[in-house]
């Protein structure tokens, strides 16, 4: 993971800022706040709901519940932020979640195949749908908005068709493990799961090491880095928050299987977006399509694979969702696309493409999740919840634009 360069308001030839400790620290703080505002907002939101609900929102059971309940939105948000970085949009993912879940259910429940055959069938369906979208967007040149709007109708219709308009359930128990399974008791513990804590502790150490190495590398190339004190503070804060989260999970049911899957996906896609040629070409296409194509980027191929990937991740979300609801419903996944899109934009992706991060989209998704969950705990009416979510999306993007305007006031 790389740290975004501080986007100073300094002109090209302005001298580097003076090295007086306090001023430097303040400068670094504001820079960091600008790039990590979204994470601060997430923490603040969690604290806010904890206060309002008298700690109920932070109960071990509820924390676990949030993870289980929103994991599939986060999976979709990974694919969606990539699509958005490339300058596209995908409105069909909700329908694709429904169709892939239905295919899996038909395979496993109707035709009595083993659970993993259902999983494979769903994944294959997702890949096919992605290739279908990719073909129209990349090779025919129809805007993704239109292609996926058509896909949204098309695949919802196919879902209704294959399910004959009725729900299909239940799945065998093994299938349920995907969304509702836990790893617990591998290393024992009294009232809490040691294994969960160990896994998270390793994660925190890994994060600290990678951040430290990245900082050292930047210093080696004479690039600006936040002062060591602030760096240590940041690592410490992240470590404490993550371990608090781990403690909650450990004292409930242990490590959710779906969380492991999500963590692997987040890491893999972060690496892909930051360190592979493919990922970098996605940013290049979104940032300036013409320049990318004149630099030898095979724009069509990249666009095609972006949508294939979105199809695949939609299928993963479809599997998780069908597993969680223990069946397939004709109306499954309704409006999921909007949650995924909102997550990406709240997480800092730019409407015009070229800007965005997988981790940012995850934070954006979690903000939506914490809000929904908190409001449910407070017993707020569904209609009002929707109003609040809409306003938060609008304000988050407005804040982002305002921030950029201020930073780039020229």
């Amino acid at each position, binding site marked *: 993971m790389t740290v975004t360069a501080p986007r100073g*308001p300094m002109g090209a030839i302005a001298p580097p800022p003076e090295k007086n400790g306090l001023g430097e620290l303040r400068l670094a703080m504001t820079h960091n706040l600008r790039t990590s505002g979204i994470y601060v907002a997430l923490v603040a939101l969690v604290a806010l709901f904890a206060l309002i609900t008298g700690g109920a929102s932070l109960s071990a059971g509820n924390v676990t519940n949030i993870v289980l309940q929103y994991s599939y939105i986060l999976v979709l948000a990974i694919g969606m932020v990539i699509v958005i970085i490339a300058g596209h949009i995908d409105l069909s993912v909700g329908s694709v979640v429904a169709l892939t879940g239905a295919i899996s259910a038909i395979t496993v429940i109707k035709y009595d195949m083993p659970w993993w055959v259902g999983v494979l069938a769903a994944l294959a369906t997702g890949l096919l749908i992605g290739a279908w979208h990719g073909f129209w967007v990349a090779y025919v040149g129809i805007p993704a908005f239109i292609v996926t709007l058509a896909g949204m109708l098309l695949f919802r219709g196919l879902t209704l068709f294959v399910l004959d308009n009725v729900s299909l359930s239940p799945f065998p128990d093994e299938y349920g493990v995907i969304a509702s399974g836990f790893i617990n008791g591998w290393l024992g513990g009294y009232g809490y799961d040691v294994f969960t804590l160990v896994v998270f502790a390793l994660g925190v150490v890994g994060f600290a090491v990678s951040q430290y190495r990245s900082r050292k*590398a930047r210093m080696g190339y004479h*690039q600006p880095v936040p002062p060591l004190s602030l760096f240590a503070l940041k690592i410490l804060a992240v470590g404490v928050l993550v371990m608090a989260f781990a403690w909650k999970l450990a004292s409930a049911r242990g490590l959710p299987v779906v969380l492991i899957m999500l963590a692997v996906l987040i890491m893999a896609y972060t690496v892909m977006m930051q*360190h*592979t*040629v*493919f990922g970098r070409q996605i940013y290049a296409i979104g940032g*300036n399509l013409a*320049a990318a194509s004149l*630099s030898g980027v095979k724009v069509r191929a990249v666009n095609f694979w972006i949508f294939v990937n979105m199809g695949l991740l939609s299928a993963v979300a479809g599997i998780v969702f069908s597993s969680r609801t223990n069946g397939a419903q004709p109306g499954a996944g309704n409006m999921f696309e909007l949650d995924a899109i909102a997550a990406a934009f709240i997480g800092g992706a730019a409407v015009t493409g070229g800007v965005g991060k997988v981790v940012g989209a995850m934070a954006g998704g979690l903000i939506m999740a914490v809000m929904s969950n908190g409001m449910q705990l407070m017993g707020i009416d569904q209609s009002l919840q929707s109003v609040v979510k809409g306003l938060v999306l609008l304000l988050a993007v407005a804040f982002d634009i305002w921030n950029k305007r201020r930073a780039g006031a020229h």
Partner: protein
Amino acid sequence: MPDYILEMRSITKSFPGVKALADVTFSAQRGEVHAICGENGAGKSTLMKVLSGVYPHGSYGGEILFEGEPCEFSGIRDSERAGIVIIHQELALVPHLSIAENIFLGNERRGRGGLIDWHKTQAEAAELLKAVGLNEEPTTQVGQLGVGKQQLVEIAKALAKDVKLLILDEPTAALNDNDSAHLLDLVRQLQARGITSIIISHKLNEIEATANRTTVIRDGQTVETLDMEAPDVNVDRIVRSMVGRDLESFYPERTPTPGKVVLEVRDWTVRHPQQDRLVVDGASFEVRAGEVVGIAGLMGAGRTELAMSVFGRSYGRFISGQTLMHGKPVAPRTVAEAIGRGLAYVTEDRKQLGLNLLDTITRNISGAALPNLAKWGFVDANLEAKLARHSMDSMRIKAPSVQSVVGKLSGGNQQKVVLSKWLLTGPDVLIIDEPTRGIDVGAKFEIYTLINEFVESGKAVVVISSDLLELLGTCDRIYALSGGRITGEFPASEANEEKLMTLMTKEKEAIG
């Protein structure tokens, strides 16, 4: 006591971390053409934004007097009401609207009940078009006009607002010589009608020919105001004032040592992507190692189209022709293949076609060579950073760090980033389209030096430019292109502006 229409006194303007205008004092006499010169980043555009109210009163220091009255503009509307109109470098026309609609945009001619009076609109537009010498119907869509004609529409739009002071920001940067001449002629005609003009330009010979007085700004401060009629004032004098030192010459010296032919293009014919006409028609040229070859042509002659179609067929529909690299036929069908064959093409429009302005210097520099910096699809970040660092030093890119966002750099530094990006692909032939458009004198000299360094290492360069002096100053050999055909070829030593212009306008007049 001269009659000043505009006086700007001790103007200061700061942005967080940088002082854009430290102390600028500047005044324009009624009815004169006044040029403002300065290197990029000197503060010219900021000054004009202060004047036109883009930066509202209170956000800058100093005072502005227009027609003797102190001005406190809080937006462009205020300054336009006073009679100050600014025409920006990037034209502000709506391509899908007609000429008449554009002229009266935001200043609509209304009839009864506040509805737009279209008859009046068309009639007045037709008169304004006559005034600026544009022979087009008011109903023509602006998007169908060439840049030169669009510029005239902008001026007509300014006239519709009863302009007293017209500010032109780089008016001829995107125009060919014919259109530029026409535009400057128009400025003189407006002068005869009593309209004062301020021209910001990098093209100093145009300033010398048009302006009555020239104010030079450097590092946010007024250096001096020169009377262009004075005997010792010429282009060299302005340059010295702009850079604060003597420039040996605009073009660095180089002794040509042409070697073997690196790139040869034979009978190259390309069709327009949509229309049924040939854009490049049987063009042939060659470039030798250690040689800089120029392609001179007016806008619409097919210069860019020729270069782009050779560069992996990235323009138009290929019809026929052959490319040979080092004597062997090659046929790169994609940009990636062309890069692999040792071709590189620096686009004329670096912001639209050359750079990802949102991304960092490092990532822009590595953009075209990325597959070479990767193993199994994973980019070697250390190698990438090292190469970017090295490019930044050797190309003398001025920026806070390699992680700086390219969109915030000056034009000259952006151009160096684009050049770095292409040099990193290790090309044998570097095609540069308009190498120095919109960048200041100092940076131009550096770009020419970098071109020289590149050919001295045994590589070849093709320069495409509208600036004939630039071609004469940098190239060893020059081809003239007209209507998609090569109409002649000269060693630079035998060429001059007249000879080239004759060939460039041979056969048919270029359109637009």
